[in-house]
């Protein structure tokens, strides 16, 4: 569950990236976050991942008020999230397996459990046979899928994706979105930031549209997010 209550983010140069944004994305819901570049999509995701802090307002994830999460609790909080980066954010000097295993290693899982879960995650994105390869040897679409496998391997309750299809062609983009829908079906709350209007139109999920930091529900794109 993601809840924003009158959240405003102002950067030190006084630019207001988000202006009094309020919305609620229920548990197990999936929504898009759209808007022109610079509209505040990245800022909104950064606030959820505790990379940035709001100037005003309240953010709540899975019933946790983020304002109270500080210091080393930040790291533990982030383990609840799965984050998919636009540039996949893979570590190029480690194999596909090791990349996907990283969240589990960080969380202190046992070796046998790690192997089991990594294989399951790689199987889901259809890359099990590539587990011993280095990311450079994979295509852009495959690299992004490795990134997704890493984001879901720790079974997060909330999955954030920042322009996950930014570097992919339409067909690969649909594949990636289909993966997200699969995770959504098992109950993961998913928020996908994208400016790919065509892709959004082709899928039946609500879209939160940011325009110069202000939020408007795009009613054209399916039912509102709760």
């Amino acid at each position, binding site marked *: 569950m993601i809840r924003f*209550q009158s959240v405003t983010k102002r950067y030190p140069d006084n630019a207001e990236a988000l202006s009094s944004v309020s919305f609620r994305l229920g548990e197990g819901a999936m929504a898009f976050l759209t808007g022109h570049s610079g509209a505040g999509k990245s800022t909104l995701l950064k606030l959820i991942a505790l*990379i940035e802090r709001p100037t005003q307002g309240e953010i709540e994830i899975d*019933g946790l008020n983020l304002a109270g999460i500080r210091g080393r609790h930040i790291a533990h909080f982030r*383990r609840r999230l799965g984050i998919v980066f636009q540039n996949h*954010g893979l570590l190029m000097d480690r194999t596909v397996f090791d990349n996907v295993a990283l969240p589990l290693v*960080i969380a202190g899982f046992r070796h046998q459990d790690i192997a089991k879960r990594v294989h399951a995650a790689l199987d889901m994105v259809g890359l099990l046979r590539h587990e011993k390869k280095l990311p450079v040897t994979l295509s852009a679409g495959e690299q992004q899928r490795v990134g997704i496998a890493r984001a879901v391997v720790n079974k997060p*309750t909330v999955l954030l994706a920042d322009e996950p299809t930014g570097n992919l062609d339409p067909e690969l983009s649909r594949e990636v979105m289909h993966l997200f829908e699969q995770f959504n079906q*098992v*109950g993961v709350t998913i928020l996908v930031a994208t400016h790919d209007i065509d892709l959004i139109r082709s899928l039946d999920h609500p879209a939160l549209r940011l325009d110069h930091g202000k939020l408007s529900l795009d009613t054209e794109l399916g039912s509102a997010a709760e």
Partner: protein
Amino acid sequence: MTPRGARPAPDRQPRSEAVSVQARNHTIGLGNRLSAWLLGHLHTIVFSLGRLARAPLATLMTAGVIAISLALPAGLYVLLDNLRTVSGQWEQAAQVSLFLRQDLRLEQAQAFADEIRSLPEVDAVTLIPADQALEEFRRTSGFGDALNALNENPLPTVLSIQPRVGVGAARIKLLVETLGSRDAVELAQLDMEWLERLFAMMDIVLHAIAIIAVLLGLGVLLAVGNTIRLDIENRRDEIVVSKLIGATNAFIRRPFLYGGIWYGLLGGLVAWIVVSIGMGVIDDPVQQLTHLYQSGYQLRGLGFGGGMSLLLLGGALGWCGAWLAVGRHLRAIEPT
């Protein structure tokens, strides 16, 4: 907790495996957690060694700097230690000479010699009567004719005292003082002053080595710190990604700290080898020298204990250096 203004949350059902798995994670026993923690460390230890092995040249260069910094004071210390052992043997060779008063008769001198002989500190006493001393002097000095010109023997009777082996310098000094205050004795002399000067000099050298060792140790800290700093810089992306997927600072710090320990251990090992080779090289000339002094002195190397100390010291310094770098630079890297 239902936030104000929010709609009531839908009933929570065991809707996904994610929830149940998380619940299970929290209930794993302490033993399991401990072994997971140990395994995590073990993994990091091997992993950090692997990272060093993948850049062997850079690793050897850093280890080389550490090795030189450790080998120099260690080698000097070993040499000084040998010198101390050798001069310690000389200390036992110290002699006390008692020059007796001219008017003492030979029998009195002999009685006095017997009395000294019975002291616990004394191993042997040799009496050199004035006549005999003169005769000897005449023979060896080449001043025979000049001595003939003298009316009477200018030399006193001398008691040469050999202290017992193992008697310390302080007790010998005390002995000299006691005997020197006796009426029969004109002058008591300890042939050890030059040895004391040598000891004083060695003490200075020891302090100098300590200063050098401290400075070089600081050098090791800086060298390791700088290497780790570069390492952190090179892994900036990795650190950012790791932090974003929930890595604690401790987790990120760990491989760098173990890396520092590895650098230090490797440096210590190379230093051990360097010192051993160095001792091997100077062993021959030392053998020749001791042969000239007709002593069978064997050069003492670092030994196993000394070598292990070098390793431990290297490891500790490497860890400290890494800690310095990590503390400063990791905090500066946050995802943006």
